[in-house]
């Protein structure tokens, strides 16, 4: 299975702190995507990073990709209570065929005000 696995399963921090979540996967990928899910807005796409990229930024979000270690990390800087959500990584394999993102179980992030 191409499924990514997020680590940690749960993370609790104070507002203003940084949050780091990791994703590991098993086989070659075409790209890796991070999504956020909360009760108010459902699943929302955050960042897509391609296999030939090593780092991408979007506002307070920073994603890195290490294809040699088959891992990615999502860093949220200066966290806010509104960042409380579950974060999922999704991998798209490079083995050909359908480009179907495969999701992990997610990291539950709680940011305390």
């Amino acid at each position: 299975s191409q499924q990514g696995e997020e680590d940690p399963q749960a993370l609790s921090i104070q507002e203003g702190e940084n949050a780091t979540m990791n994703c590991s996967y098993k086989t070659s990928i075409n790209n890796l995507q991070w999504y956020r899910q909360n009760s108010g807005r459902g699943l929302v796409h955050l960042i897509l990073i391609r296999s030939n990229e090593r780092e991408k930024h979007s506002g307070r979000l920073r994603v890195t990709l290490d294809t040699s270690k088959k891992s990615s990390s999502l860093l949220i800087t200066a966290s806010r209570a509104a960042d409380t959500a579950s974060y999922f990584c999704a991998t798209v394999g490079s083995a050909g065929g359908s480009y179907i993102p495969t999701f992990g179980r997610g990291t539950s992030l709680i940011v305390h005000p």
Partner: protein
Amino acid sequence: GAGVSQSPSNKVTEKGKDVELRCDPISGHTALYWYRQSLGQGLEFLIYFQGNSAPDKSGLPSDRFSAERTGGSVSTLTIQRTQQEDSAVYLCASSSGGAGGDEQYFGPGTRLTVT
């Protein structure tokens, strides 16, 4: 513009009944996906449509599940003879279908409860 919409938002049905879940993707998106999510779990892939190609049904858990996509737009997921283990949130997503996979836009989901 309008996002992905799904209906109904909630569905309670008795075991053994059939249900139909609807998804309206973003206009112009050629790729459409169905997933389901059980409480506290990740997303389980069910089926994928891309343009006029034959759908990828590799994620359907049993022959009680089927889906169709009419005119390359609206999709319906049908579950026949529902079982309690079918209870979950069913999510639909669409994307522009770019080569290599691209970002997905998700609907709000249909929460299915089988009693």
